[in-house]
């Protein structure tokens, strides 16, 4: 392994000392702006979202009577990304949690995850692109749709062949009643 390191590998004992002094010198005369790392972090977070974020395109609340006969409404929410439309429907469970039914279009077998404040729930969509979370705690969540290849074999394809991006929705609050 050291055969590659002729240029930079540690050499004579005094070298590290000299390099430490060079570092201190430039930290004194030309330090990175103190807020640069923070601005980088923000730029990275933003770019990350733009690359993968689904947009909320439609949201509707239904009158309850048709479905469950409870006082609570159902909501349907639609998200769009470049390759995928995600529709979810949220219904109240009697125990205070919510049930989430979803559809992916075009239909494909993906893994769907709900990222909660303190963990992740995951289910597989079936061949029709349907998926269901029978019981999700109320609160703020994001949905993450991951292509099958990615969770099965960790991004190993370099072909780029029909590779779907991971799509993440904006955060939403899982509630059926207001």
């Amino acid at each position, binding site marked *: 392994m050291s055969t590659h390191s002729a240029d930079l590998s540690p050499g004579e004992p005094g070298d590290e000392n000299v390099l430490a*002094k060079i570092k201190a010198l430039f930290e004194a005369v030309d330090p990175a702006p103190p807020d640069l790392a923070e601005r*980088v972090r923000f730029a990275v977070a933003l770019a990350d*979202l733009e690359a993968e974020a689904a947009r909320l395109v439609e949201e509707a609340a239904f009158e309850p009577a048709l479905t469950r006969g409870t006082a609570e409404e159902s909501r349907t929410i639609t998200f769009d990304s470049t390759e995928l439309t995600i529709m979810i429907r949220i219904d109240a469970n009697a125990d205070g949690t919510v049930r989430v039914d979803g559809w992916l279009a075009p239909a494909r077998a993906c893994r769907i995850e709900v990222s909660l404040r303190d963990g992740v729930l995951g289910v597989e969509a079936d061949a029709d692109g349907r998926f269901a979370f029978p019981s999700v705690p109320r609160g703020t969540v994001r949905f993450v749709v991951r292509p099958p290849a990615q969770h099965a074999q960790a991004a190993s394809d370099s072909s780029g062949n029909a590779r779907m991006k*991971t799509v993440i929705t904006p955060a939403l609050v899982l509630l059926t009643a207001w």
Partner: protein
Amino acid sequence: MEESLASPAGIPIRATLLDGLIPELTPLLWQVARAAGLGAEDAEDVVQSSWVSLLSHLDTIREPGAITAWLVTTTRREAWKVAAARRKTRPADTERLADIPDPRPSPEDSALLDAEQRALWGALRTLSPRCQELLRIVAFVPRPDYDAVAVQLRMKRGSIGPNRRRCLDKLGQALRDSSGDS
């Protein structure tokens, strides 16, 4: 380490990984950009865009040292590109760009420096621009990432021949010369 790069939950862990690396490596990349002769604003832009483009390469990078090497190489390449473009639009500035362009007070008489640092600064300035750049970058590379960065720098810029040993020897000589003078 691979596991932390390919996270189970997607973006949040990726962002966490970057959150840890960003404060650690941004000062290094700043020095890389400045050593190429960029002004402060250009240097900040180049550093930022290196990090952003890392996002789309993260899946192909397998170890932390390789991330450092990738960032250093990308920042350096981009910084030289921008520096060259600046030189073209401001031909009168070529001499100044060979130095470290800096609106701040000149380090020679900066009150921030002690006598030893002023001597070191003076000695550094006698080296070739390539040696100055190499030593400045190397001084900021985290030690565990040395090898990965060395391989990258040498492959991509073979003709520059970054040679730490040679540059350090010259620096040592310059320091001895100057202390003999005074």
